């Protein structure tokens, strides 16, 4: 099965996330082997996802978590 660029581009995110079925995956890879434009799309989306996943993630402040825990464990249901 030959895929068009538009069909490949439509499922790039799923391909990058390795969530396409094996048949689609083979068809996409067959297309990528021949199409430098789609290859660049896949590469740059892959890099983008990697960069987002490597971003420094903030965590909730400890005192905020303690305040929340106290409210949850102690308050009366009627006061919610």
């Amino acid at each position, binding site marked *: 099965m030959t895929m068009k660029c538009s069909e490949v*581009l*439509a499922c*790039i*995110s*799923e391909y990058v*996330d390795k*969530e396409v079925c094996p048949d689609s995956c083979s068809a996409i890879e067959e297309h990528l082997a021949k199409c*430098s*434009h789609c*290859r*660049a*799309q896949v*590469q*740059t*989306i892959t*890099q*983008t*996802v*990697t*960069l*987002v*996943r*490597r*971003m*420094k*993630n*903030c*965590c*909730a*402040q400890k005192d*905020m*978590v303690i*305040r*929340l*825990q106290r*409210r*949850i*464990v*102690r*308050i009366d*249901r009627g006061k*919610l």
Partner: protein
Amino acid sequence: MTTLDMEAEAALLDRAKTGDREAFWELAAGSVDPIYRLALRLMKREEDAEDVVQESFLKALDKIGEFQGKSRFNTWLHRIAVNQGLMKLRKRRSDVFSMDAPVGGGEEGDAHFMELADFGSSALEDLESSEAATVLESALEELPIDLRTIVVMRDVNRMSNDEVAQALELPLGAVKWRLHRARTILRDRLGEYFAERVCRTGETG
């Protein structure tokens, strides 16, 4: 943060539904950081994010009897937090307006026609640089709120597409499409940065 398995979650849920607050906290504690990250990306202000977190968890505690366990507890909390956040943003109408404005330059739809250069092998190491991290931060911040929410749930909080769809009550296809669109916009912003930085044009992989 520990991730509870399904069985442990179900057992804690049963106890929490009978009013056991300790069990509720055990169930919920692992979601505090992800919900805070989501709230901060939605609200863009720490104090508002903290309010959203507090309100979301208290609401979950109040409504625990209505939670049917069709999704993971963490997914349900995300749904509550998104609703709480949006409600708060509606009160800050001017901010909602600016957040819904088009992304800078309005060129995000033209990705297919751009000549794409690979960011280069140094890109990942470059994120360590504060400059690249700032570009990504601001690109994420400028995403329309619906797309930003999905990126945070999916790529920051590492939820599955199915979980995101459950949390946002969207069809799976809509989640996938929005995620793709969000990543494309981020990619284009990063691409501009790396292209400028490397002074390289028109080179495709």
